[in-house]
Structure formats: structure tokens, C-alpha cells
């Protein structure tokens, strides 16, 4: 229970606090006049009281209340510091020691304990408080809630006109309205007459007001409570709407119910409420439990595919039946897996709704006007992905406001609307979620980017780069085009960090930009980080998994399609373009693999950016859903592999990191090189001489280690 967990801390803290109080009181007694000392005693007593109230230690609350009041009066000068008073406080502190020690042993203290001191403290407080109102007694929370009981559904009409400055206290009308919605059906009309032309509207002021009709069981106090923090910062009218005549007598009667009847009614109402909440359509579950479920289902999927593999070899009449049953099991397994994943899925709305505040703050600071539109708020994505998305997305939005969208003055000059448009959208596309941040600002200034890149030695001045390559320079570590460090997007974390965060989740980021028209940053992320669809391929005695999302087709190459452009680099003509061949046996040092491409297969793979690679394998074994096991947690990162998985027979297979593999060798101008090569050699070479220089024995040892590591982790 919460109580036990914290009581221990509370008592420990009390001991410290009492020591502090004693030290301070002793210093005071020896003649020090430091006002901070009284304050220290006050704080000690005050915090002991706070905890005591939380644990319902009434005797301590009562005692500290009077103690604290006297101290408070002494603190603000209403009571003089005298020797006698300090003595009294010291004795009061001793009583408090005893009270706390008793409470710690769960014993009731003698009710008469410290009575004399208590009376002296009360008298002292009365002296100090003369002419002042006695300090208000602590409010018991929930008391107000109990004072009124629901009287069936009623219809209220509300007018809510926030004062202009309400936003400055961090009160957000949207959330207030949302809180009202939790009480019942809400009809809302916004009054926008007060809103000045957009370029005159200070973003930090609220110029809207609302008329609402609320149908609710909740009593008036509960409605008013929602406006508790803003009642003096708005014009608020809450009134019962005309009640149909038939309802009147009933309601009168209920209002006339004898007060004595109330406790019972309240209890009934409570029970009713509880019953209703049990019947409601959602429950709160600890995330750890869901994660545990996801892991277990993952293990079951592996076990199930192992079983299926063994069963497949069965023959005879019985075998067919078993196979049929396991296939059924397999279908259910996948449904179960989808359902469990769906539990972890959350709407992206929770991230998007943070953005208006960020936009308001950033645009306020920069003097820019921004209008935000969002699409696809209901798109669902795994909770972990969602959590890891907040920071990158915040950064991208700030970046768009800071560097993308121009100031209203600049926009006016070029004939754009004074307000900048920012669009956030999310959608599902082939098993991934695509999130885009689009602005109608000035676009990426490629010249400036290039200049900066040269200055920062990231690029040679004469480099001939495509627009896209220049755009992508934004994601290079250390790159920043902003001329000065701004408060909004700042420096230190740049787009390179955004990219790293996204890539770590198996996502990609790309940017498109038209100078003068705006930019669009697109994120493509996996829907879940736990499973993926993969194509299992064989390379010698090893197997690898290629993410299905990255594969286009597999080709049985003929030697005529293949050109060799340098000792270890071959290209294949596929779909009208030359694609570099990456033989997997070479990358991972597999020694017993097929080395003649004509005997094997190449799988045409594509990264999200559209870069292609022809991955050479021995054969394609099939497609299956695989459970992703992190290499970093279980072993160490392996170049060319993004993760590992356990296949049906219990063997570990590496999951190929297609973009990583594309980046494994520098890009070269293939067409020119091919043409040159053709002219020189005019002939076709067969790869195979280019077996990896890496020691194959070391490679195999590494993979054995990986298997045992993974087993250890599973066990």
C-alpha cells in the first residue's frame, strides 16, 4: 500500500526536520536574530503537519497546527521573539518528538500529552492573531464532492469569456472545455467577434469566448470546480436551462429531501458510480504487464514456428491432421499477436496535441504567426514509437517555425499570406506510419547550406551535388545553418540528432523543399518495434532475414545483365537502371555460399529514400513474421544488420539493414564507370574472386557467440 511505502520516509524525514528545528531554536535562544531561523522552524513544523495530514495522524496535525500558527505570526513580526517563547517552542518540539515516536510505533499517544503546551501555543497564536481572522482550518479534500448528490441529468447553459490575459497563467481554455466534456454531452458555440484581424492578434491573448449547453448529472459545484482556477480571470455564467414542466415537481421533491437522508443517498450514488465505472469500456493497465504479454507472445510465436517446422516433416494420415491443427494454431497466434500489439497502439493525437502549445510559444517568441492544421490524428502507432517521437517531432516543428516560416513582414513583401501554414499529418502506408511536417516558408536555402558545408569542411567547394543531397546535409552531425543561436530551436541538438533518434527506431527521415514555397520533412516509422515481416534467405549454411518492406523483387540473374565495374563491385541492370550488387556472403564472410550470381538469386531492395541495392543470396526460403531481438542488448551491433531474430528451428538469423548496407560503400557514378569499363574491357566478369578478406573463422565464432547469448537472454 501507498501508506506503508511512504510512512517510513515520512518518519525519517520528521527526525531530520525535528533536528533542524531544534538547532534553529537553540541558535535563537542564544540570541541570534536571524529571521531565517524562525522560518526554518516554521517550515519544519509545516512539513511535518503536511505529512501527518496525509497519513491521518490527527493528534500530530492538531498539535502542529497551533505550533505552526504561532511560528507563522512570529515569522511575519506579529509576535516578538522572546526567550520565554523560544523555550515554549523547544518544549513543544519535545512533545512533537514523542507524538511522532508513538505514531511510528503505531501507538495512540496519551490524549492529554502536551495539553499544557498546546494551550500555551493556542494562547500565543491568539495573541498574535488578535484582530486577524483565525487561520482557516484545513479543508478536507473531497468534502465538497460529497455535499451534493446527483439529481438526474440536467441541462445547463454556460457562457465562458476568458479575460485576454488568462493564457499567461498557463490556463488553457481548450483543456477546460475538455474537462467539461467529461461531465456529459456538451454543445459548444465559439464567439469569434472579438478576434481582430490575424496580423493584429497577439498570440498570447485569448480573444475567443464560448457559449455552451451541457447535459450532465453533475451538480453545479462540480461544473464550477472546473472553472476554479480561472473564475477571477473570466466572465462566467452558469445557469440551469428551462426545465420541461413535467420534470419540475420531481426535481423539487429531490431538492426537498431531508438532510438526514443524504448520507445514505450519497453512499448509493457512490455505489452506482462504482458499478458504472466497472461497466465502462476501458481499464487502466500498467504498461509493464502489457510489455510482458508482448514478450510472451513473441516467444510463443517463435515456439509455434519451431513446432510447425518439425510437424511439417511428419507423414501419413495422422501427420496431415497435426499439420492442419498447427496451421490453425499459427493463424490464431498471429491474431493474438496483432491483438496484443493493438493494446500497445495509441493514437498519434497525444503527440499532435502538444504541438499547439509549442507553436504558440515559439511563434510568440519569434513574432511569427502560424496556423496549424493536422491530419490523421487518429492514426495509431506503438506506444514506444510514439514516446520516441515526441522529441524529434517537437524539434522539427520548432525548426520549421524558426528557420522555415518567414516573419509576417517578409511574407507580406513576397505576397504570401501573413500567417505561415504548418501542417502535421500522419497516415499508414504499407505497414509503416508516415508523419509529415510541412510548412509554406522559404524552403531550404541550398546555396547557404552548401556554403556552410564548405565552411565546416563537410564538403568540397567544387562538389557537384543534387538538390536532394544538399537537402540531406541538414542531417549531418554538427551542421547548422542558422546564423545565430536562437532561443527556439537553439543549437546543440540539431537535425542530426532527430535523424539519429528516428534511425534508432528503424525509421527514416527525408526532406523535400522548394525554394520560396516551403519544405516537407517526412518520417517513416515502423508501426511496432517488436515484430516485422521478413523474407528469409539462405546464404550457404546461414540464413538471413530481409525486411519485406525493403524488398521489391527477386531476380534470377543472367550473366549478361551483370557488369563488373571494379575489383569488388558489380552492377546489375534491373528495371532499366544499374544497381550495385552486394553479395551477402561477402558482407558476412560466409564461406560455403554460391559465388556465381547465375546460380544464385539477387533480391532487389530499396531504402525509404529510394536508393536501391541488389542483394545476392543463394535462395529465397520464404516469408514470415519475425520477432525482433536487439543485437545491441544481446550482443553488439553488427555492420549491415539492424537486429537479429530466432527462426523456427531455433537458429539465430541476422536481419539485414538495407539502408545501412547501401551506405557500406561510397556511392559512385555507376553509369559513367560502367560505360568506361565497357569500353575498356568490353567483357563480362564473374564475381567470385572477391570473397571477403575478413577471417571467416572469426565470423563464425562471432555468430556462435550470438546464439549462446540469445539463448541466455531467453532463458
Amino acid at each position: 500500500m501507498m501508506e506503508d511505502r511512504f510512512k517510513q520516509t515520512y518518519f525519517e524525514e520528521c527526525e531530520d526536520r525535528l533536528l533542524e528545528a531544534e538547532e534553529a531554536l537553540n541558535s535563537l535562544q542564544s540570541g541570534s536574530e536571524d529571521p531565517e531561523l524562525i522560518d526554518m522552524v516554521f517550515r519544519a513544523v509545516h512539513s511535518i503537519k503536511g505529512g501527518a495530514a496525509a497519513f491521518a495522524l490527527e493528534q500530530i496535525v492538531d498539535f502542529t497546527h497551533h505550533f505552526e500558527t504561532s511560528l507563522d505570526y512570529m515569522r511575519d513580526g506579529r509576535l516578538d521573539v522572546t526567550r520565554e517563547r523560544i523555550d515554549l517552542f523547544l518544549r513543544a518540539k519535545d512533545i512533537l518528538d514523542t507524538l511522532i515516536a508513538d505514531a511510528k510505533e503505531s501507538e495512540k499517544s496519551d490524549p492529554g500529552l502536551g495539553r499544557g503546551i498546546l494551550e500555551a501555543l493556542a494562547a500565543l497564536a491568539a495573541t498574535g492573531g488578535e484582530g486577524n481572522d483565525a487561520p482557516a482550518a484545513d479543508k478536507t479534500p473531497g468534502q465538497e464532492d460529497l455535499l451534493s448528490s446527483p439529481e438526474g441529468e440536467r441541462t445547463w447553459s454556460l457562457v465562458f469569456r476568458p479575460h485576454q490575459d488568462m493564457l499567461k497563467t498557463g490556463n488553457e481554455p481548450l483543456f477546460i472545455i475538455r474537462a467539461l466534456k467529461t461531465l456529459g454531452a456538451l454543445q459548444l458555440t465559439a464567439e469569434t467577434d472579438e478576434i481582430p484581424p490575424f496580423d493584429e492578434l497577439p498570440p498570447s491573448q485569448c480573444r475567443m469566448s464560448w457559449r455552451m449547453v451541457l447535459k450532465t448529472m453533475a451538480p453545479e459545484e462540480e461544473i464550477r470546480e472546473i472553472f476554479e482556477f480561472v473564475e477571477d480571470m473570466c466572465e462566467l455564467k452558469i445557469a440551469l436551462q428551462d426545465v420541461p414542466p413535467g420534470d419540475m415537481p420531481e426535481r423539487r421533491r429531490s431538492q426537498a429531501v431531508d438532510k438526514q437522508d443524504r448520507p445514505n443517498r450519497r453512499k448509493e450514488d457512490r455505489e452506482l458510480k462504482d458499478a458504472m465505472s466497472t461497466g465502462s469500456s476501458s481499464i487502466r493497465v500498467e504498461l509493464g504487464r502489457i510489455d510482458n504479454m508482448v514478450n510472451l507472445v513473441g516467444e510463443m510465436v517463435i515456439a509455434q514456428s519451431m513446432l510447425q517446422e518439425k510437424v511439417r516433416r511428419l507423414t501419413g494420415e495422422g501427420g496431415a491432421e497435426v499439420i492442419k491443427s498447427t496451421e490453425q494454431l499459427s493463424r490464431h497466434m498471429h491474431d493474438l499477436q496483432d491483438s496484443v500489439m493493438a493494446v500497445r497502439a495509441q493514437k498519434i493525437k497525444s503527440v499532435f496535441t502538444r504541438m499547439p502549445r509549442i507553436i504558440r510559444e515559439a511563434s510568440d517568441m519569434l513574432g511569427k504567426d502560424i496556423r496549424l492544421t493536422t491530419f490523421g490524428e487518429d492514426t495509431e502507432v506503438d506506444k514506444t514509437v510514439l514516446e520516441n517521437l515526441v522529441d524529434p517531432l517537437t524539434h522539427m516543428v520548432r525548426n520549421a517555425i524558426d528557420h522555415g516560416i518567414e516573419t509576417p513582414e517578409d511574407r507580406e513583401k513576397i505576397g504570401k499570406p501573413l500567417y505561415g501554414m504548418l501542417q502535421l499529418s500522419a497516415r499508414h502506408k504499407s505497414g509503416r506510419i508516415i508523419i509529415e511536417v510541412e510548412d509554406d516558408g522559404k524552403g531550404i536555402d541550398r546555396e547557404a547550406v552548401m556554403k556552410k558545408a564548405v565552411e565546416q569542411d563537410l564538403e568540397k567547394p567544387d562538389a557537384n551535388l543534387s538538390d536532394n543531397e544538399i537537402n540531406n546535409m541538414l542531417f549531418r552531425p554538427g551542421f547548422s545553418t542558422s546564423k545565430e543561436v536562437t532561443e527556439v530551436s537553439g543549437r546543440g541538438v540539431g537535425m542530426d540528432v532527430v535523424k539519429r533518434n528516428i534511425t534508432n527506431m528503424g525509421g527514416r527521415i527525408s526532406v523535400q523543399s522548394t525554394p520560396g514555397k516551403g519544405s516537407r520533412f517526412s518520417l517513416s516509422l515502423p508501426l511496432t518495434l517488436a515484430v516485422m515481416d521478413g523474407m528469409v534467405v539462405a546464404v550457404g549454411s546461414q540464413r538471413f532475414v530481409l525486411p519485406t518492406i525493403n524488398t521489391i523483387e527477386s531476380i534470377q540473374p543472367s550473366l549478361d545483365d551483370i557488369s563488373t565495374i571494379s575489383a569488388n563491385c558489380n552492377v546489375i541492370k534491373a528495371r532499366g537502371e544499374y544497381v550495385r550488387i552486394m553479395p551477402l556472403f561477402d558482407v558476412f564472410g560466409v564461406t560455403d555460399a554460391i559465388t556465381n550470381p547465375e546460380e544464385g538469386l539477387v533480391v532487389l531492395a530499396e531504402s525509404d529514400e529510394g536508393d536501391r541495392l541488389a542483394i545476392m543470396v543463394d535462395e529465397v526460403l520464404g516469408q514470415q513474421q519475425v520477432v525482433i531481438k536487439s543485437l545491441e542488448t544481446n550482443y553488439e551491433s553488427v555492420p549491415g544488420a539492424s537486429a537479429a531474430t530466432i527462426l523456427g528451428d531455433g537458429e539465430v538469423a541476422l536481419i539485414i539493414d538495407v539502408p545501412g548496407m547501401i551506405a557500406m560503400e561510397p556511392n559512385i557514378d555507376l553509369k559513367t564507370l560502367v560505360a568506361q569499363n565497357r569500353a575498356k574491357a568490353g567483357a563480362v566478369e564473374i564475381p567470385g574472386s572477391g570473397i571477403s578478406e575478413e577471417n571467416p573463422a572469426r565470423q563464425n565464432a562471432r555468430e556462435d557467440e550470438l546464439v549462446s547469448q540469445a539463448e541466455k537472454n531467453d532463458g
Partner: protein
Amino acid sequence: MPLKIITVDDSKTMRDMVSFTLKEAGYDVLTAEDGKDAVRVLEVNRVDVVITDLNMPNMNGIELIRAIRAMPTLKTVPVLMLTTEADEAKKTAGKEAGATGWIVKPFNPEKLISVIQRVAGG
């Protein structure tokens, strides 16, 4: 996506209880021991809600609220003050400093959560 909330209190008991309640409700929680500590934390962390005690050494709650409102990125972040008394003077002082609202100690966990939802929407 849970909101990130910082609870500022010089009392460890109070800090632990608030953060326990918040964590149970699924929020991310940061803590600070006084106003100065909170400012240090807030300089490097993004938070969605600040919950602060008023009586604290070094920098008290009212001073902290003023400091928060002076920070460019926190101008409109919801700030809730924890008060033991239903003390109108303190509430007024807090509101003048820019506080969003208040929570009366000892707090009722449900009430704490509903207040957070009312000021931060989640």
C-alpha cells in the same frame, strides 16, 4: 504519450507521494527539492506541468513561479501550487506570480489527476 510533470517540494514525503500518485496514473515524473533546484532541472528538461510547494528554502514557490514565467519556453506551462491551508492570501500571491491553479494538501489522488487533466489536457 505520458505528460512529463515536475514536482517541487522540500519534503521528501510529499515529493514521493506526489510522484507515486502521478507515476501510478502513468505520467513521467521529475522531482526537485526547492525552487533553485527546480530551475536547474527546468533549464534542461521539457515538462508539461509544474507542481510546486510554496514554503521552501533557497527559492520559495512564489519566486519559482515568477522565475518560470520569465523563462521563454515556460511562459504558458501550467504551474500548480500545493498549499496546506485554503489560504486566500497565498493563492492570490501565487496567481499574481502567474500560477495556473492550486491543489490543497493533503491531496486526494483522484483530485490531483483531475486537476492535471483540467490544466494540461492529458
